[in-house]
């Protein structure tokens, strides 16, 4: 999903859109990331909707800006952030019903999924 698909939505709208997709058992690969307060609200909204069918989400963000302490590289990423806003990095969101675990290592992501169909057959 390109960031432009959520860019014009309000914070609440972004959270709702991503959470609804996750609840539909879709794995979302978003170009860019949410703001920290939006990530926090996403977790809060997720908790409010947990029930017997929906166990929550798995969430991971890779943003090179998180790992740079200072120096020229930090300046470079800060400039990039000014131009691109929240469009730097990648966010992965998936329902905990289908995503078992997301491992970060730290610049690559490994996504382990569950076999939902198999579980349903049982």
């Amino acid at each position, binding site marked *: 999903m390109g960031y432009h698909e959520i860019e014009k939505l309000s914070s609440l709208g972004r959270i709702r859109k991503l959470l609804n997709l996750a609840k539909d058992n879709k794995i979302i690969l978003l170009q860019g990331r949410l703001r920290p307060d939006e*990530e926090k609200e996403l*977790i809060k909204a997720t908790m409010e909707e947990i029930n017997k069918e929906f166990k929550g989400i798995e969430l991971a963000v890779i943003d090179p800006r998180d790992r740079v302490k200072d120096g020229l590289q930090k300046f470079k990423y800060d400039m990039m952030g000014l131009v691109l806003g929240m469009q730097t990095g990648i966010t992965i969101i998936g329902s905990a019903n289908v995503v078992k675990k997301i491992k970060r290592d*730290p610049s690559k992501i490994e996504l382990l999924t569950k076999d939902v169909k198999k579980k349903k057959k049982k």
Partner: protein
Amino acid sequence: MLRFLKRWFRRLFAKQDVKLGLYGPPNSGKTTLANRICKDWLGEELGKVSKMAHETREIQMKESVTIKSKDGRELQFNLVDTPGIATKVDYEEFLKAGMPEKKAKKRAKEATKGVIDSIKWLDDMDAVVVVLDATTDPYSQVNITIIGNLQAREIPVTIAANKVDLRKANMKKIQAAFPQYNIVGISAKYGKNINNFYEEVFDLIGA
């Protein structure tokens, strides 16, 4: 010099009721650390601990905890122990741990409410110790989200890497994950390095 100025300003505008929050993912040892602090300075524990996740499902606060530094300074704060923040809560995990179904469902419901309460309280903190389990992966998004929010609100934060007494503990990995923060390795259970932790709290609150 900058550190001295920061400390001087904080002291000048110091609040009377400083809230020091313990935040982190479930089972990182927040309540064990809260108990260690309360036992060391008040002689009593704050909450129950267990190996099962989401043992703490309500905010617990101990008012007027006074700690002393090596050079005789005193610092008073209200200690806030919070339920672990998670992105999922599955009652089946509690079932697997041997809990009856009714109890497991109740625990899961309370755990989700606990996470919401922790998040609601985050902005009210004056300083936060993020307690991480040094034996687990520090790159969990929950850790990054908590720290990112504290940074955005300019709330002073330090990281306590707990369970360093265990062989699997990896301080280097935690330092690599959060290079811009002070990290103190501790064992809240056995009190290892706890005096360095208290010195870090003095620096954090600026007393």
